[in-house]
C-alpha cells in the first residue's frame, strides 16, 4: 500500500488489575486497516478480540483496565493520548461502533429516531428538523420498512434484526471513516444474518468506510473480509489476506480452528478438534500461549514467545514451527 493506513494499532497491551493481580488481556497486538477495506478479527472467547476493539474506542473501563503500552493511530493521531473530550467527539462521529446485543446497546426509554437524532445534533450540529429528516433517511437506508413511523418506535417494539438495523443506522449516521462491528450478527438467525451482512457490505461500498469486523465465525469472515487477523489468548497469531488465510493457513491454531468448523457441504464423520482449552488470562506463560495444546510444541516454544514473522508477502505468523510441513 502506498498510502498510510486509516487505522494502525501497534504493539497494543491492555491489562486488567483485579485484586492484587495483573492480567494481560491483550499483548503485542498490531494490525492496520485501510479505507474501504474490511478487516476481520477472529478468535474464540477470551482471545482478546473484544478488548482490542473496545480499546480503539477507548471504552475499556479504567480501572480495572489499563493501557499498558503501544499506540492506536487513527488518521495519524494516537487515540491513547487524546483527552476524554476529544475521544467523545470521535465516538459516534468519525468512528462508529455496532455491538453484538442490540437490545442492551440501544437505550430502551428513547425512540429509535431520537437516539439517532441525538447523535446527529451532537456530532454534526444539525437542527432538530434536519436531524429528524436525516434519521429517517438513515433508517430508510438500512432497509427498515416505513422508516418515518418506525422512527417513533421504541427498541422493544422491533425484532432483533430490525434493532440491529437501527444500530447500524446509528453507527453510520455521521458518516464515520471507521466502523467497528463487534459480533454484529452473532445474536441473529442465519437468514437475518445474511441480510445484515449484505447491508453492511452495501453501505461500505457506498460510504467508503473502513470496517473492522470482530467475530468468532470463520464463515462470516470468509464471506465479508478482505484481510484477517487471528487472535489466540491475547496475541495475534496469524495475519493474512482472507484468500491466503483460507487457502494457506499456517499457524497450528488456525489450522485446528478451520478443521473444527463443521461444513454444510459434506458430512465428514468425526470433526477435527483442538484438545484442551484456552489458558486463562492469569496463567503465567513464558513461551507460546498455544504450546499447551500444540502437538508440535518444543522446549523452545514453551520458553520463548514467538514473534510475528513474515512467511510470504502480507502473510505473517507467530509460530516457531511454521511452516508446519517442515516439522513432519
Amino acid at each position, binding site marked *: 500500500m502506498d498510502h498510510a493506513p486509516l487505522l494502525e494499532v501497534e504493539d497494543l497491551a491492555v491489562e486488567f488489575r483485579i485484586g492484587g493481580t495483573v492480567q494481560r488481556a491483550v499483548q503485542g497486538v498490531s494490525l492496520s486497516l485501510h479505507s474501504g477495506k474490511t478487516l476481520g478479527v477472529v478468535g474464540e472467547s477470551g482471545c482478546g478480540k473484544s478488548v482490542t476493539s473496545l480499546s480503539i474506542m477507548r471504552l475499556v473501563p479504567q480501572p480495572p483496565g489499563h493501557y499498558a503500552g503501544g499506540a492506536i493511530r487513527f488518521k495519524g493521531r494516537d487515540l491513547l493520548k487524546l483527552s476524554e473530550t476529544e475521544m467523545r467527539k470521535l465516538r459516534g462521529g468519525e468512528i462508529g461502533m455496532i455491538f453484538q446485543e442490540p437490545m442492551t446497546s440501544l437505550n430502551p426509554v428513547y425512540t429509535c429516531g431520537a437516539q439517532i437524532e441525538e447523535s446527529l445534533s451532537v456530532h454534526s450540529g444539525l437542527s432538530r428538523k434536519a436531524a429528524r429528516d436525516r434519521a429517517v433517511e438513515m433508517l430508510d437506508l438500512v432497509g427498515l420498512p416505513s422508516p418515518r413511523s418506525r422512527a417513533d418506535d421504541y427498541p422493544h417494539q422491533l425484532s432483533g*434484526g*430490525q434493532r440491529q438495523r437501527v444500530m447500524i443506522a446509528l453507527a453510520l449516521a455521521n458518516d464515520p471513516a471507521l466502523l467497528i462491528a463487534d459480533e454484529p450478527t452473532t445474536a441473529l438467525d442465519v*437468514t437475518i444474518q445474511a441480510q445484515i451482512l449484505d447491508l453492511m457490505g452495501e453501505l461500505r461500498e457506498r460510504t467508503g468506510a473502513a470496517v473492522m469486523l470482530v467475530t468468532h465465525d470463520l464463515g462470516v469472515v470468509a464471506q465479508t473480509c478482505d484481510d484477517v487477523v487471528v487472535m489466540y489468548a491475547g496475541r495475534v497469531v496469524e495475519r493474512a489476506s*482472507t484468500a491466503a488465510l483460507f487457502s494457506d493457513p499456517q499457524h497450528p491454531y488456525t*489450522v485446528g480452528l478451520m478443521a473444527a468448523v463443521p*461444513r*454444510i457441504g459434506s*458430512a465428514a464423520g468425526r470433526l477435527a478438534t483442538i484438545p484442551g*482449552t484456552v489458558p486463562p488470562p492469569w496463567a503465567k506463560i513464558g513461551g507460546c500461549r498455544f504450546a499447551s495444546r500444540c502437538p508440535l510444541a518444543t522446549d523452545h516454544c514453551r520458553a520463548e514467545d514467538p514473534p510475528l514473522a513474515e512467511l510470504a508477502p502480507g502473510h505473517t505468523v507467530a509460530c516457531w514451527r511454521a511452516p508446519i510441513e517442515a516439522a513432519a
Partner: protein
Amino acid sequence: MSAMLEVRGLTKHFPVRRGVLRRQVGTVQAVTDVSFDVNEGETLAIVGESGCGKSTIGRTLLRLLEPTAGTVSLDGTQVMDLPAADMREMRKRMQIIFQDPFGSLNPRMTVAETLAEPLLLHGLATSSDVKGKVDALLETCGLQPWHAGRFPHEFSGGQRQRVGIARALATRPRLIVCDEPVSALDVSVQAQIVNLLKDLQTEFGIGYVFISHDLAVVRHMAARVAVVYLGRIVEEAPVAELFATPRHPYTRSLIAAAPRPDPAARKTSAPVEGDLPSALNPPPGCAFHPRCPLAEARCRTERPVLRPLGKARVACHFAETAPTTEAAAENPPSEALTRRLQVLEAARQKENT
C-alpha cells in the same frame, strides 16, 4: 415395526390473557400438529430459527410442558397418559441437555452431588457404590475423577456441558433431547462435544432429538432432519437428501444463508427477506408465503399439508414442480489445510503413544 419414539399430532398453544378478568385475548400457536419418529440409536434434528417452536417441541414431548393435544409414545408406552408416579419412572428413560450448562446446573452443588442425585433418586446406585458410578460417568464424558468435588463455576463452558451430558446419561436413558447443546460453545470445543455425543450414541444406542439452528452442525449429527417454521414441520428428510435436494423454499433459504468458511463461495443470491412472523397472528395459508420467492395466490389462502415425496415429507404446493437446486454446494477445505492437519494429527498421535 414401530419406532422407539413416536410423536403424533403434538400441539402446544399458549393462551394470551389480558385485563383484570384475565380474559383470553389470543393464542400463541407455538407448536401445531407435529409428528415424527426416532429410532433407537438414531438422531433426528429439529431445525429452525428462534421463535419457531423447536424448543417447545422438545419440552412438550418430555412433558416439561403439558401439550394441548397429541400423543408421544416411547417403546410403546403412552407418555402423556401416565400418572405422576409412573411418569417419574419414565423420566429415567428420557432426559434433556440444555444450551446453557451454567443456567441448568445447581451452583451450590458439586459435580458429584449433581450426578449422584439422579442415580440415588432412581435407585440406580446405593450410597456405598455411588462414588464409583459418578467417577465412571465422568470418565465416559471426558472428565477426570478429581472434577467431582468441584462446583459448576470452576469449569469452562465445554466442561460444564460435559457435566450436563453426564447428568443426562446417569439414568441410562433411551432418549435424550439435546436443546442447542453446542450453540454457546467455541468452535474447537463445539467439535469436541459433537464428537462426544456421537460416541455416546454409538456406545449406548441412545436416540437423540437434536434441536439446533446451525445447519452445519446438524449435517454432522443427524440421520434425519425436520425443518420447523412457525410451529409446524415444513420439511422432513434423511440428512443427505435434505442437503442435496432441499424441496421447501424455506429449507433452501436456510441452507443458502449459512455462511461457508470459504472465500471462493461468496454468495451471489439475495437472502430471503423479512422476519419470522408472530405466532400470535400467523399469516393465512402457507405461513412462509410473505417471505417466499415462489409464493402465488394459492399459497396465501390454502395451507399446504405435509405430504410424502420420495423419502421426504414436504409442506409446499410446489414441492414437486419447483426446480431443485444444489443448495449445499461448497468447496472442500484447501489442500494446504488438509496436509497440515495431517501433520498435526500425526504429531498428536505420536505424543499420545
